[in-house]
């Protein structure tokens, strides 16, 4: 049943990614039309607009959540593909552990970056 549970989360993460990536497309690539979360000029990815978004707690939490969901979906999918090579159980275990450590590491790094960017943005506003 554990495999079915992980697979359920994998599918759910895919559905959430679909929604969140839609938001990403709207905010980052259709900014010139809607000017969503980009109050400083038309260029959505300008430093000023990026800092504006980084300073919002919703975005920081959103970045971390998107990273966690994306990493789980991607790495679980990669694990599924690798396990279909019909490897020895020890090798399968090693792949699972490696991908788990990789995922946690990347999530930690991404979380640090998002929190740091949030801090920098807030410091900039205060300064």
């Amino acid at each position, binding site marked *: *049943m554990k*495999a*079915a549970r992980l697979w359920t989360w994998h599918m759910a993460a895919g559905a959430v990614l679909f929604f969140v990536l839609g938001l990403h497309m709207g905010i980052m690539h259709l900014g010139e039309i809607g000017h969503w979360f980009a109050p400083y000029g038309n260029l959505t990815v300008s430093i000023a607009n990026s800092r504006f978004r980084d300073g919002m707690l919703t975005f920081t939490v959103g970045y971390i959540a998107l990273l966690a969901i994306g990493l789980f979906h991607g790495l679980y999918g990669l694990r599924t593909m690798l396990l*279909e090579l019909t490897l020895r159980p020890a090798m399968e275990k090693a792949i699972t552990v490696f991908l788990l450590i990789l995922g946690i590491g990347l999530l930690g790094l991404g979380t640090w970056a998002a929190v740091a960017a949030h801090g920098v943005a807030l410091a900039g506003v205060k300064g």
Partner: protein
Amino acid sequence: MQNTRPEQRTIRFHVSRFHPENERGPYVQSYEVPVHEGMTVLDGLHSIKDNLDSTLVWRSSCRMGVCGSCGMLLNGRPGLACTTQILKIATTSLTVAPLPNFAIIRDLVPDLSSMFDKHRLVRPYVIRTDEAEIHDPSGEFYQSAEELEHYLQFTYCIKCGCCMAACPTLATDARYLGPMPLTAAERYNADTRDGGQQERAKVTGSSPGAIRCHYAGECSRVCPKGVDPAKAVQLLKRRLVLDYLHLARKSEPCKKLKGAGSGMRMPNIVAAPAHTVETIPAAPGELSILK
């Protein structure tokens, strides 16, 4: 009066041969077989055995697509030799090989034991908590025609192994349960008389279970009985997900209709037709073997 004997053609049979005790691997042997319309591949194999090569080995029994013994790879597609007409799939040549994804016992005989081992794992029978009722029934379990429809097509499976042979996932991962056992699991899960879904989920929800299916759909395309194993596996996946998320509809195995001996015919079920042949009285002493 005109001769109505069908026209004969010669088809070259390329048959896979393998004797594990004497040979290192399978090889192809060709035979020229005179074929007429209506001849099945099984007829062709019998023709080879009777007239050309008596050492050719295959497995068959009923000759009418019921027993599932003669599953083979016919021109690269799994099918039953007894229900496949030669001229429907071949114009000049026909390749006949054992079902892939199985070990070969000899020539065209696959070793289906791996399939039946997996089949056994999913507990393909009605499981109930009131076990005494299973062994010594005191009434009928009610099941409506609509409830029967939920799993009826899956009961048509004859365990020929064609779906297992066509499955690309099974080709790469021998541990995958495969379409036939998973279809059997869904057949019993969907049966309202059954209460063993949780038991089966331990197997079907495991790593080599239903989630391994990529939904290639080849199993459903090749099934000689028109069963849709791909659908069964998707239903099984849905069942596992809903069960995990506690969104599955709560259901108890159906109850008995009445008490002992009071199972009654439903009003909309017509009576059985009268016998079309006279019953021959048993000869004296003939029934004694049943006593």
